[in-house]
């Protein structure tokens, strides 16, 4: 199944791009368990010229025969104020999950991606405020701190992760980078969630 979604992130392009890439997964992949699916996300390729990144997500239902894999390409465009992300997903499902229809998949993907965006924005905003003198990564010169997101739900830097994050924040990174790292890490776990957990788990159970 091919799905495309477009979303807007209220953060400068360079910064979103850095957040997407700065994470350096140990062992080459982020792993996690979400909604009954054990999944991993691997950063496959990066096109610095075109600001595009390809991910490969894979998941297996812990109790059952559900199998899912997705090739996800995220293309970024934007300016110093905001970023547009075009997400193309090539999803392969097997087992029970394969019974879902396309609309349900698209809907679940969109819901999840919009949640991902608000979380990303929130954390980017949170991380840009408290620690001022932390040297920036290859971030842009001047970044107008994005307006405080209205909704309080997304927690700040140390949220109780729903899954055991098999990711130890690498000590060599600066505070800010760790924060950014966490965004990316969480974003990616959410991608796993999107394609493999919530989408498959919740939508299936919700519809029956």
């Amino acid at each position: 199944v091919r799905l495309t979604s477009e979303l807007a992130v209220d953060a400068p392009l360079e910064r979103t791009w850095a957040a997407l890439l700065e994470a350096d997964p140990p062992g080459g992949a982020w792993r996690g368990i979400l909604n009954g699916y054990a999944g991993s996300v691997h950063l496959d390729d990066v096109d610095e010229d075109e600001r595009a990144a390809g991910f490969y997500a894979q998941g297996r239902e812990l109790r059952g025969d559900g199998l899912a894999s997705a090739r996800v390409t995220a293309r970024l465009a934007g300016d110093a104020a905001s970023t547009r992300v075009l997400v193309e997903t090539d999803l392969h499902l097997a087992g029970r999950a394969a019974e879902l229809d396309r609309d349900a998949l698209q809907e679940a993907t969109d819901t999840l991606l919009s949640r991902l965006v608000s979380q990303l924005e929130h954390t980017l905003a949170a991380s840009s405020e408290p620690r001022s003198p932390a040297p920036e990564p290859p971030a842009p010169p001047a970044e107008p701190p994005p307006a405080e997101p209205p909704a309080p739900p997304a927690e700040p830097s140390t949220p109780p992760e729903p899954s055991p994050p098999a990711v130890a924040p690498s000590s060599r990174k600066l505070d800010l980078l760790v924060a950014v790292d966490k965004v990316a890490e969480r974003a990616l776990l959410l991608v796993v969630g999107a394609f493999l957990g919530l989408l498959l788990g919740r939508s299936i159970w919700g519809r029956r």
Partner: protein
Amino acid sequence: MKPAPFEYAAPESLDEALVLLDEDSRPLAGGQSLIPLLNFRLARPGRLVDLNRVAGLSYLRRREAVLHIGALTRQATLERSRLVAERWPLLAQTVPFVGHPQVRSRGTVGGSVAFAEPSAELPVALAALDARFHLRSSRGSRTLSADELFVGPLMTALEPDELLVEIEVPPQPEGARSAFVEYAETHGDFAIAGAAVVVAPGDHAAIALLGAAGKPVRADAAERAFVEGAETARVAELAAEHAPDGHRRALVAALVREALERAAA
């Protein structure tokens, strides 16, 4: 059979790994070629330096139009990559010929190159793409072309303490078309001969041969003939001159013809 005893080291940084490499040690990447050799005791290194924990050796990155392939990038990653399929289709066309999916999920691009198995597919494709190979050792670093790196069957210019860290592939010319073909008794088995071609309007032709010389070779006379507008049969005949005997010559000629036709299709 089981391997002869060896010491095992799993460094976490490139510098640590480089210090551990010497005459008596072998780097271990995906292990798809080395482990069988150890099991048959055809190789008996005193120490294996496992690179799998070394950070930052696995990536596919396009920067200023050039593709950078980390040596530890799995063949399966190369196979899945849309970036590679769109801009360096020859690599995407070649990887499915490497072993079987299980092998590719573990096997690395750098391993395929550094092992220099004469029937390996990726070195031939990389030779056709004018790839550059970055080597590092604790003494320094250097960059070689395919012709400089590959010396003969299972032989490269890599010194015992050197490690292949990155492969750089230049952008493909505008309108480039490519194809990879090979002949093996069964799919996934060692290929007997093969050809990788890239042709582009204007004056670009790259024809690299597998199984002709114990290492990847560029059929330069055939390339020139192609650019000058020679017929496909003539180009194939010139390429076949690199092969050692009648049987392989016929094979190489047939495969080059097929590759050129596919690239033109």
